[in-house]
């Protein structure tokens, strides 16, 4: 519609033979330009804020970079921060591809931590079995939490954005109850509420020994086997979305529910399945902290990873590769916070502002890019059609 009414549409002059690029190359170029533009815009506005504090933007940016990359242990800390964000963003993106917003990753992973703790503390199993069982318990808990909004959406049409937020609220109380009652440690030496310490068989081993970097990466950087698992999850999500029938159906439902249904796809069944997969991924979000860092479940568990995951997913265009890159960028910003706090007079929250600016500008840039791309595709098709007609 909009394309047909464009004023400059009248008969294309045949003269200047500008061969348009193939659409997929074009798409990549346009998107790359969008990302660069968004980053540049963020850098500029961020610089203005930093200048208003009387600091040098270049110095701040280079501090952030140096603090996160100069030593192996810094890189390990960046990866540690990126690990939960990868899972969280994958959970968001899988649902998004099927046209749903899983704002409930937050609540889902908190419940997952609770069920994982139950499996870790209450079961007495050999190490080979125990750790996988704990991970499965986390997935199961998160899936149950995702099931409620999913089934309500499919059966009643209740919008998942509202219901998942409510489930987040419920999860906080549920976990507080669990920590106060069944999971509470019998050890009275602690002021704060917490579970028993996990047995060795339920602890996620660090990655450093396997890399031979034990002497360079201190154990205070909690880089565990969950990071390679997160990479694996990226690959698995890519395969699911782009190489399986369910993935195809999910993308069809997300792109155009009407056409998907006309094509014989059950919208409800697809969305339910996808939302459960999203929940299962959410189960991993809290595990690096729980099994690789704390080694027990206490009231001061890490929060807001689910919300940050949304930002990571949008920045990464909801594509597994994009998510990996944007999670690493967020890891750098997290780690850079320490650098900002040590080396400058800026509040460390400046990185949060940079993140926010980046997300806002990237969302707008992607939308503009999408429109530019659509227009170019139409142009490409017109040109090909013109050539075919001329040849006939």
């Amino acid at each position, binding site marked *: 519609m909009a394309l047909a009414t464009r004023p400059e549409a009248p008969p294309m002059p045949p003269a200047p033979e500008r061969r348009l690029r193939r659409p997929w190359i074009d798409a990549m170029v346009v998107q790359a330009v969008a990302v660069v533009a968004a980053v540049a815009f963020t850098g500029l506005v961020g610089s203005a804020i930093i200048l208003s504090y009387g600091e040098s933007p270049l110095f701040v940016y280079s501090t952030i970079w140096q603090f996160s990359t100069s030593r192996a242990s810094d890189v390990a800390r960046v990866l540690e921060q990126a690990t939960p964000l990868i899972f969280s963003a994958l959970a968001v993106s899988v649902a998004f591809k099927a046209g749903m917003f899983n704002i409930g990753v937050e609540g889902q992973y908190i419940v997952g931590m609770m069920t994982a703790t139950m499996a870790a503390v209450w079961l007495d199993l050999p190490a080979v079995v125990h750790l996988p069982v704990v991970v499965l318990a986390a997935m199961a808990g998160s899936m149950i939490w995702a099931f409620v909004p999913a089934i309500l959406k499919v059966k009643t049409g209740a919008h998942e954005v509202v*219901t998942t937020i*409510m489930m987040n609220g419920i999860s906080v109380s549920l976990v507080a109850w669990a920590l106060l009652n069944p999971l509470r440690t019998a050890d009275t030496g602690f002021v704060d509420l917490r579970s028993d310490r996990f047995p060795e068989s339920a602890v996620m081993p660090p990655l450093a020994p396997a890399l031979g970097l034990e002497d360079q990466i201190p154990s205070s950087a909690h880089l565990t086997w969950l990071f390679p698992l997160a990479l694996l999850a990226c690959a698995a999500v890519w395969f699911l979305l782009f190489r399986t029938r369910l993935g195809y159906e999910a993308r069809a439902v997300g792109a155009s529910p009407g056409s998907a249904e006309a094509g014989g796809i059950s919208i409800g069944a697809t969305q339910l399945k996808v939302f459960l997969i999203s929940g299962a991924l959410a189960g991993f979000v809290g595990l690096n902290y729980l099994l690789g860092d704390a080694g027990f479940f206490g009231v001061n568990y890490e929060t807001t990873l689910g*919300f940050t995951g949304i930002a990571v997913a*949008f920045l990464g265009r909801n594509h597994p590769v994009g998510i990996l890159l944007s999670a690493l960028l967020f890891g750098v910003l997290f780690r850079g916070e320490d650098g900002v706090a040590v080396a400058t007079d800026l509040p460390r929250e400046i990185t949060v502002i940079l993140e926010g600016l980046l997300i806002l500008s990237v*969302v*707008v840039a992607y939308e503009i890019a999408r429109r530019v791309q659509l227009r170019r595709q139409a142009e490409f098709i017109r040109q090909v059609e013109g050539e075919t007609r001329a040849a006939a």
Partner: protein
Amino acid sequence: MPLLDLGAAIAIGLSYFTIIYLTGLGGLFSERSGIVNIGLEGLMISGTVMGAWGAINWGPVAGLTIGAVSGLLFSMVHAVATVTFRVDHIVSGVVINVVALGLARFLSQLFFGSASQSTSGVPNFGTIDIPLLSSLPAGLGRAFQDMSPMTLIAFALVFPVIFALNRTRFGLRLRSAGENPEATRTVGVRVVPLRYSGVALSGLLAGLSGAFLAIEVNALYQEGQTQGLGFIALAALILGNWSPSRLMVGALLFGFAQAVPLRLGDAPIIGVLPDQFVRMIPYIVTIVAIAGFVGRVQPPAAAGKAYEGTGGT
């Protein structure tokens, strides 16, 4: 049940009603103009931190004003994204919420020297007692004592809002932009300014509501104090079928649900439940209400759809 507690519960319910109703009215203006605003929570958050800062420095009136204006300014991000750049409304709204979390930490650090809360005792309005009602016997009068004047204002707002929506040129045009922007355009009315003003009103009201929460209800800014109330306001809006008067009913229901864990934790039946389960009640009420009502209400026809327009209006 001890009626003293019931009275106190009603008083708290009315405070929460005020928050939910103000925010819900904001959502109503935005959605009636065709822009779904899931960022209400984030707009409220900006109102809490800016409002508390304003009230600490210049008193409650300035605090509420600054909160409302900051909500308005922040909502312009949503307007630019959805109206001008035609970004998906939910994507933009979600981004507003995520960004608000970080922005609030930054501002709180800047204003209060702590990323998560201000000092308590933010100056607020004096409270008022409603004549006659406040002397109801058996503790029920408690419900109408020490009320914030803002609560009365919130109740009274329903009249100008209904009038504006049904009897003014602006209101009718705003609604037409939400129902059928193409028709609006055809009769020579520009859709874009209408949608901008719808979103601006939502920011103003959500910011005001956030400032009310920080200044009048809690007397401090605290990270996470909005507790999803922006989303509950959305739920009330759905329940109220996008009408100002029915929204009031929804806001009262959800407002009182909020009060249950705070004041009625030991009432019969509820008292049997562990405290943490009582705290789930407001959320469960919201889920049940949404699931039960959503198919039977009618949102504005063009809400959530980008208006492509012609010629940039």
